């Protein structure tokens, strides 16, 4: 390109203990473009952005802004140079108003006296300038996630940023919020801002970006104009090999009629405020089958799973595993009787983050006598086993004694899979198993679930990602307000009809009188 870039990185290297997060990165960002950075989890995207935003100092290499070499000692230096970053995890104060959150640290107050009204007026003006819909007097805790993100964007704009970095901004948004965000980004670009946008969702990147840079294992694999890129090509650059977007789901042949493995009969589970979150739900998951549970989040899926796993008291009904009633038994009993569990929140329910990889892999089996020597654990044996597990499940960690929180999301999920599948279960309850995972890790999880299905397991798959449910399941049930509103085989219903079921516009089962059962 003829134009001289606004921001140039040359030879940037950043090391952390045990990993090289960025390796000899060369990157040029043009003035006024939306530049996407894609890569799998752990590819080094966030690290690179933090270097540009002044949060980390590179070990090697140079940053050139507008032809001048710059060195930053902190985010304030970056802000002074017009670089601002919206972090993956929002840095907001829920009990402050929108205006307070934005002006904090740059209050422009005379004599140390802070006037909320003046701050609100200033922010109202700023929001109007970029056509952002936002009430500066509202408390941030009352805002939707999408609106909170607009607050973060305004924080950066308020500080006069001309280069705006967004770290996985869409990971937390629902589809219509993504559209709003993209509209906001377009208007920022029109206002002459330069935007660097991180994602691992390729469809999005192709929609919004002008150019796309792919990172893999800390290196730049290449930069391509979005107009000339394809999803397949980008995925291959990210992962380093061709990626399947269409799953092979071979029919499984059984000797006889399929046996029902996990049965739920008229299950009612109470949720928050003792309201019925699951109301009289019944289904059977059979051998060699994946039963998908679709639905808009918050329609009782979480409570259903917790009711089955014994994590939440069951108000009525039964959970039956291979003819045995396991309703309301302690979670450890339910797991020991053969139900593997992949929880929806892997960081809070699935793992103990500050504990080591091997300790986490052992949790749930810590009572097993085979890993004991007298009253002590047989550490040698345990660690050997954990090593072989993480090899089989391709968990990438430099050291099994390291804390689990240092692993990427994909590797954390692989560790959970490894732990859960190693007990030879007969059924799997998987809740949002690929949430937040990149292409490679998602593919891995899918392959594992399909392999388990081929081995004869019964799998209950709960996911907010409709495409995932449709791709993996043999049968799908749709939940709406705690009830099953329909059941179908993927491929037999158009997406719009499924959407109507999910939104409660359509239902096959009669609606209960008065909305709730007596």
């Amino acid at each position: 390109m003829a134009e001289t870039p606004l921001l140039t990185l040359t030879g940037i290297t950043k090391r952390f203990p045990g990993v090289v997060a960025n390796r000899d990165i060369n990157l040029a960002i043009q003035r006024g473009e939306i530049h996407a950075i894609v890569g799998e989890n752990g590819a080094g995207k966030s690290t690179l952005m933090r270097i540009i935003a002044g949060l980390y100092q590179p070990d090697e290499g140079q940053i050139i802004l507008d032809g001048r070499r710059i060195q930053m000692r902190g985010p304030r230096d970056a802000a002074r140079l017009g670089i601002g970053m919206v972090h993956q995890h929002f840095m907001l104060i829920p009990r402050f108003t929108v205006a307070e959150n934005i002006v904090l640290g740059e209050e422009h107050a005379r004599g140390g006296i802070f006037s909320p009204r003046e701050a609100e007026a200033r922010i109202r003006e700023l929001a109007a300038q970029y056509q952002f819909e936002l009430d500066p007097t509202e408390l941030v805790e009352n805002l939707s996630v999408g609106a909170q993100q607009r607050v973060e964007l305004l924080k950066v704009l308020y500080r006069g940023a001309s280069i705006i970095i967004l770290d996985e901004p869409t990971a937390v948004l629902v589809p219509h919020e993504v559209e709003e965000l993209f509209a906001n980004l377009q208007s920022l670009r029109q206002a002459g801002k330069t935007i660097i946008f991180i994602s691992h969702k390729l469809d999005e990147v192709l929609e919004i970006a002008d150019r796309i840079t792919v990172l893999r294992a800390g290196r730049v694999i290449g930069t391509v104009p979005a107009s000339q890129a394809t999803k397949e090509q980008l995925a291959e650059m990210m992962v380093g090999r061709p990626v399947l977007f269409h799953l092979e789901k071979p029919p499984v042949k059984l000797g006889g009629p399929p046996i029902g493995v996990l049965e739920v009969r008229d299950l009612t589970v109470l949720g928050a405020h003792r309201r019925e979150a699951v109301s009289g739900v019944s289904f059977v998951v059979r051998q060699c089958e994946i039963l998908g549970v679709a639905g808009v989040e918050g329609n009782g899926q979480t409570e259903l799973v917790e009711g089955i796993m014994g994590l939440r008291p069951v108000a009525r009904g039964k959970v039956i595993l291979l003819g045995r009633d396991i309703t309301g038994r302690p979670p450890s009993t339910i797991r020991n009787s053969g139900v593997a569990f992949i929880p929806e929140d892997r960081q809070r329910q699935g793992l103990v983050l500050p504990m080591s990889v091997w300790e986490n892999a052992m949790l749930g089996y810590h009572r097993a006598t085979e890993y004991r020597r007298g009253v002590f654990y047989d550490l040698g044996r345990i660690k050997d086993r954990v090593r072989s597990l993480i090899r089989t499940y391709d968990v990438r960690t430099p050291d099994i004694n390291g804390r689990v929180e240092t692993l990427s999301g994909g590797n954390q999920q692989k560790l959970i899979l490894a732990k859960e599948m190693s007990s030879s279960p007969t059924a799997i309850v998987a809740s949002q198993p690929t949430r937040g995972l990149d292409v490679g890790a998602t593919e891995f999880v899918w392959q594992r679930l399909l392999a388990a299905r081929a081995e004869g397991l019964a799998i209950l798959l709960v996911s907010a990602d409709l495409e995932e449910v449709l791709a993996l399941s043999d049968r799908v049930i749709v939940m709406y307000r705690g009830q099953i509103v329909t059941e179908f085989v993927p491929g037999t219903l158009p997406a719009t009809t499924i959407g109507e079921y999910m939104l409660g516009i359509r239902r096959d089962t009669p609606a209960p009188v008065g909305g709730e059962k007596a």
Partner: protein
Amino acid sequence: MHPDLILAAGVSSPAIADAVASAIRLTTPLLLTALGAVFTERGGVVNIGLEGMMIFGAFWSAWGAYTYGPLAGLAIGAVAGAIMALVHAIVSVTFRVDQIVSGVAINTLAYGLVRVASQALFHSATTSPSVPSLPRIDVPVLDQIPALQPLMANLSPLIVFAFVLVPVSWWVLNRTVFGLRLRSVGENPLAADTLGINVVLMRYSGVLISGLLAGLAGGYLAVEQTSMYVEGMTAGRGFVALAAMIFGNWTPVGAMFASLLFGLADSLSIRVTIPHVPYQFVNSLPYILTIVVLAGAVGHARAPAADGVPYERSGE
């Protein structure tokens, strides 16, 4: 004081005004300390060392008043409280020791140090000689109304100061840059840090303000209320003030009303005797009230999000 007064129907209005006046006098040390507690906790540092800071303030203000007069004595008491608070800040903010542990240590330390100092300076581990108080003030005009006289005349200036400090504290917290930043580090120190706010400085400020005010409250007890230092004179008021601050939902005005409630209970407990009820029961009223109120308040009150959580920069 007057355990002979029996509360019964038809108590004369001067007696009620008298009881209210006593309640307000007893509220003052609670209020000062509770306002300080609002500052430290809104900045994210739990300070259960307030009791120790009050003890320290009580002793050193008595010494100061004995040596240099009442005004200097109160100032010395406040500074003494702040010195204890500085210890708490260094231990819990800079070195990130658990704030409860640090607070307990402060209480123990203050108690021990004061005994030693009292022995050295007054040749008695438990009491000081009598010390002078500030001149009393009368509220003009209102002190002429007989019914209000006990409330409006012959007041310690510190009482007026404590109540004036309520709107001032509200203003500082909500209408100054300092207050905004202090609250931000109590809610989300990481967010504040990324915006260039000096988290450590803010938290030190909050803790030091609480120490100054707790020390002053101790000074009120010794110099203004009793005219001498007596061991144990704080009688757990640092903890009661903490409860008042929580019951007052971490706000200055709330803390004032809660302090008044506790002050009233305190005043009734020393003025009221009920036939056939052992006086110990009545005396324990303020403490029972503290427990009941806290148990009831837990569901409604909302602490700052990062209250009690040490802040450590990560990453770099």
